């Protein structure tokens, strides 16, 4: 069977599957371009809860405060207490109250998420502008402001995943369904 025949038969099979809603194993024309390890790493932002994906670098809360004041305070307020945009600190113990306050300290289950998100998306108007050291430092500052780590604790690819978040046990998974 020629390649064209194969693809044509597949198109028909897929159309039938689409109409009936059944799932079929499908085969494509195999046109994906090979991607080298370094090319894949260049587009990879993913930081896993166990620390995989974290780059080399380090920072502490004192360094983080400087960056926070310059890049973050205008939206998130003094000490992360909230400004025009999300509150990032405090609220620990509030989740069962009349006004749950969901912050990094009170709600987020994993410390690695801070690094992952800040590196992806912050500061809002200039994402990508912070070095790995800067992101570690801001992460350390936010954790220290929340009382989760000591002010002199240095955050690195080794220490950050080891941070135990206060609400770590506050979640269950709806997927996969029972």
């Amino acid at each position: 069977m020629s390649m064209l025949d194969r693809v044509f038969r597949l198109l028909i099979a897929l159309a039938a599957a689409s109409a009936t809603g059944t799932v079929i194993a499908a085969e494509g024309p195999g046109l994906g371009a090979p991607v080298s390890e370094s090319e894949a790493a260049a587009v990879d932002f993913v930081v896993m809860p166990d620390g995989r994906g974290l780059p080399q670098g380090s920072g502490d809360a004192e360094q983080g405060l400087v960056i926070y004041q310059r890049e973050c305070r205008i939206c998130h307020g003094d000490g992360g207490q909230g400004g025009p945009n999300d509150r990032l600190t405090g609220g620990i113990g509030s989740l069962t109250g009349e006004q749950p306050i969901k912050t990094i300290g009170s709600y987020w289950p994993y410390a690695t998420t801070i690094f992952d998100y800040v590196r992806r998306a912050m500061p809002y108007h200039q994402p990508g502008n912070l070095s790995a050291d800067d992101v570690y430092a801001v992460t350390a500052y936010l954790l220290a402001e929340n009382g989760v780590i000591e002010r002199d604790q240095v955050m690195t690819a080794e220490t950050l995943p080891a941070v135990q978040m206060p609400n770590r046990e506050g979640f269950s998974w709806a997927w996969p369904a029972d």
Partner: protein
Amino acid sequence: MSDNSSRDDLAPVAGNGLLHRRLFLKTGLTAGAGLLVAGRAAAEGPDRAPWMRAPGVGMGPSGAPSPFEEHVVRAPVGSQPGTTGAGVSRTPLQHLDGIITPSRLHFERHHSGIPQIDPGEHRLVIHGLVDRSLSFDAETLDRYPQVSRIQFLECSGNSGALIAPNPVDADCASIHGLISASEWGGVPLSVLLDEAGVQAEGKWVVAGGADAAVMSRSVPLEKIMDDAIVALYQNGERLRPSNGYPMRLFLPGWEGNASVKWLRTLKVTESPAMTKDETSKYSDLAANGQAELFTFPMAVKSVITSPSPGLDLAGPGVYRISGIAWSGGGRIRRVEVSTDGGASWAEAALDEHVLPHCLTRFRAAWRWNGGPATLLSRAVDETGAVQPTRDEVLAGRAPEAFYHYNGIQAWAVDEQGASRNVYA
């Protein structure tokens, strides 16, 4: 009224004037107004309206709605303070009919604006726990087998305004407009993942976007291999930039946030990445302080789009109640309508297209007697799931938990024919 509607069709089947849905299964209901004769003829012969007296405007490269429909726009548009692209715009449901949302009116939820992507410079990279990391541009994907399905996309924050202790004074779009439906065309991701060769430990796929927020969500591999597509087309044309041009993830029936737009990376992993949007957001907090992660499917839901706030009734008489129903569980099986606040219900007529994971249009005939009325709709899907009441939705939830709200909407019609949002 059509001649073949029997007297029985106009006999109420439920309280407060609900008529039999048979009215819509025959020739349909015609409004009272006859043909208007506009203007007078300049010469002998039958009348001509003003626009019939000279040739109309010429053809053009792209169409636009009538100037008389200028009010049919997305609204309200809101963004986080200090930003223009971190927020939502909502589909004007009360001004639309049928089941397909015009692309220009599809709701928006962006986290850092709409990137203006040159498709020649954009690649989707599949990597992680695969035998071969691969990349695809839109032109290459267009050579792959494609599927096309008419399906809804709903933000899991849709209708969240109804958790407020007192009913907000807002229209249908403002409350429920984070739902739209389109014909989505694209390549089944199972084909691309099979080409890359998923390794045995691979159980999740972390999707990342090419927006400034690098929006990301972890999606179970099972869903990716079941019915997920990388969408290239929306309603027959290439995706709009606001819907992920040149390519987006599309996960039928699941919360919209997980269908990552401007799709740039799919990393196969053995577990979720626990990104900001799947932990601190889009997780559901219960009153006991425990929260659920990965509540993906959108539950069964319906809303009456007409009458609704802003669409006032002209006076007592027969009206068409119209609305939409949908479910992440599959097809809509049945929709019931009440005009007496739930004391009695009648089954609505469903339009011809009842598709899985899609909007279904329902209609009911109603003779309004000019008195107060409370309109409700209640949908049931093919799994037997019944749309719950507001109280049922909120039971056990934390006070401000607003995601995945699918309670029954009540519109109160007053004696002037105006509707407003109420809790029935």
